[in-house]
């Protein structure tokens, strides 16, 4: 079972996050960068699958040079090796471009049985990359998994969305995206941390992976961010004193907001 896990470095959700003024892309320098929490769960699920069925786990990351820290975290948790797609020309790549680039890199890897990703990143939150990647590879996509099981050459997930829970099964190879509920990721042990230093990380440029520079980056993006503004600060709440008419006042408030 050879599993590729997509890992992304994101600004820590605990730190203040900003967009840069010039091109409305994420100001990655301003916040602490960490391995996305949802990716930790993706890595954990890959490791569980490997522990049960054998094989190898490869962490695949597209991102700037300092994303090596997120890769290190995945390797410390137990992934066997990593591939890092890093190129100046990738700056500003949108979801479609990301999926195209990742599909190319997956094409350079040998016999991949399954790709596991987080359902959406905590920074971009488009939630589209796993599905697009599956489409580009021509593989089945099993998204929003809250549980995953493998049986021979089939993968079955419980897919949980607002609409409910469904069971979805597909033949491998397949792309699976996982939700927050899938597992509790392990913390890297010291042995894992030490071992990570010796694990192979291959760094690829666009040219190495055979990616057309015109399809990625800000210029290749199909979507364009024209303006951005920080979320307005929270307004102070309104206090209603119940003078026998509390219920009516609440209904008034809700209907004023078109909520009832």
């Amino acid at each position, binding site marked *: 079972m050879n599993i590729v896990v997509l890992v992304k470095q994101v600004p820590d959700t605990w730190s203040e996050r900003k967009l840069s003024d010039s091109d409305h892309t994420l100001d990655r320098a301003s916040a602490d960068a960490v391995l996305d929490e949802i990716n930790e769960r993706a890595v954990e699920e890959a490791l569980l699958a490997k522990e049960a069925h054998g094989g190898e786990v490869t962490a695949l990351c597209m991102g700037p040079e300092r994303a090596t820290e997120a890769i*290190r975290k995945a390797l*410390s948790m137990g992934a066997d090796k990593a591939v890092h797609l890093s190129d100046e020309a990738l700056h500003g790549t949108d979801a479609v471009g990301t999926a195209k680039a990742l599909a190319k890199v997956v094409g350079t890897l040998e016999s991949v049985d399954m790709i596991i990703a987080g359902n959406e990143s905590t920074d971009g939150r488009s939630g589209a990359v796993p599905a697009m990647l599956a489409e580009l590879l021509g593989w089945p996509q099993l998204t929003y998994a809250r549980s995953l099981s493998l049986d021979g050459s089939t993968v079955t997930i419980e897919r949980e969305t607002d609409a409910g829970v469904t069971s979805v099964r597909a033949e491998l190879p397949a792309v699976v995206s996982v939700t927050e509920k899938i597992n509790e990721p*392990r*913390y*890297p*042990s*010291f*042995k894992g*941390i*030490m071992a*990570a*230093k010796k694990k192979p990380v291959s760094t690829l440029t666009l040219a190495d992976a055979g990616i057309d520079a015109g399809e990625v980056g800000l210029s290749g993006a199909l979507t364009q961010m024209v303006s951005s503004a920080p979320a307005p600060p929270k307004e102070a709440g309104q206090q209603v004193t119940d003078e026998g008419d509390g219920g009516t006042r609440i209904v008034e408030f809700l209907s004023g907001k078109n909520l009832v």
Partner: protein
Amino acid sequence: MVDYRLNDEHEQLRLSVRSFATKEVAPVIGDYYEREEFPYPLVSGMARMGLFGLPVAEEYGGMGGDYLALCVALEELARVDSSVAVTLEAGVSLGVMPIYRFGDQRQRERWLPGLASGEMLGAFGLTEPGGGSDAGATRTTAELRGSEWVINGSKAFITNSGTDMTGLITVTAVTGTKPDGGNEISTIIVPAGTPGLTVAPKYSKVGWNASDTHELAFDDCRVPAENLLGERGRGYAQFLATLTEGRVAIAALGVGLAQGCVDECLRYVDERSAFGRKIGENQAIQFKLADMELRAHTARLAYYDAADRMLRGEPYQKQAAIAKLASSDAAMDNARDATQVFGGYGFMNETPVGRFYRDAKILEIGEGTSEVQRMLIARELGLPAR
């Protein structure tokens, strides 16, 4: 060149333990503390991260790290909570290390995999109801009868000695008389549950309330002769070495508490207002925080120095005593100041600084009181022993 920055692996470990402490320990520890309950799920989590095997070689199921790795983990845990930190500290520096350092091959193979993986906890019984500082005056006895040691006596304040996962307690006991007439002291491994060993109900403590501490009674408690740890008559030297090492670990724990006080205050002074401004805008508060940071920082350098000398195989007795003293002072002073900064909330058990205040005092007592540390430093200065 002097370089007291952590190397890359230790720094990664620090981050990993920090994230465990803030995400897993911080949200739940207050309740365990309040209920005076041992936090089994947290201890299992620490075990899964390999923390109990940090300084143990991989061949015995350890992580193949060093003693500094243990210290770094302790500091980060204690930054959030001292009960879980001391469970690890006593588990490793008092539980694992004597067997790792002094045990023969058979003893190491029998006990270390379980201890280093954190499946079982080890305890170390040195202190007795009659005295701890003068540990050479042990009154517990062990007599070799046939192929068994028969142990009689009692031990006081023994950490990790009564949990469901306690696997063994190593105890010091008088095993005979030396040629010079003094007591011959040896260390003996007593598996948990051995008949004749009675674990008293847990103490009601001022602090460290989510850690496990009991008095132990030995009444014709019999263990096989092969449970003698290392050589007969080496008990005194063994516990001195164990305690010297342990001092560096407990120093790291104290630094964690001292730093935790700074963390909590930094957050609070930016939230709390009085007289129309944040309390953190008052210089009187700022200077308190500056002093707190100063104490945590200098105490950290002191334990880094002691650990560095230990790892180089150089003498470090004086540095270990200095580190323990500096760090327990820093912890006490910072806990007092942090509680002050928090005002009335600081006196509430639900705020971490309230816990820190209660947990700090024991650091001036356990593993050698502050007076004992000063005695050790004075000895190292060449002053006469009385």
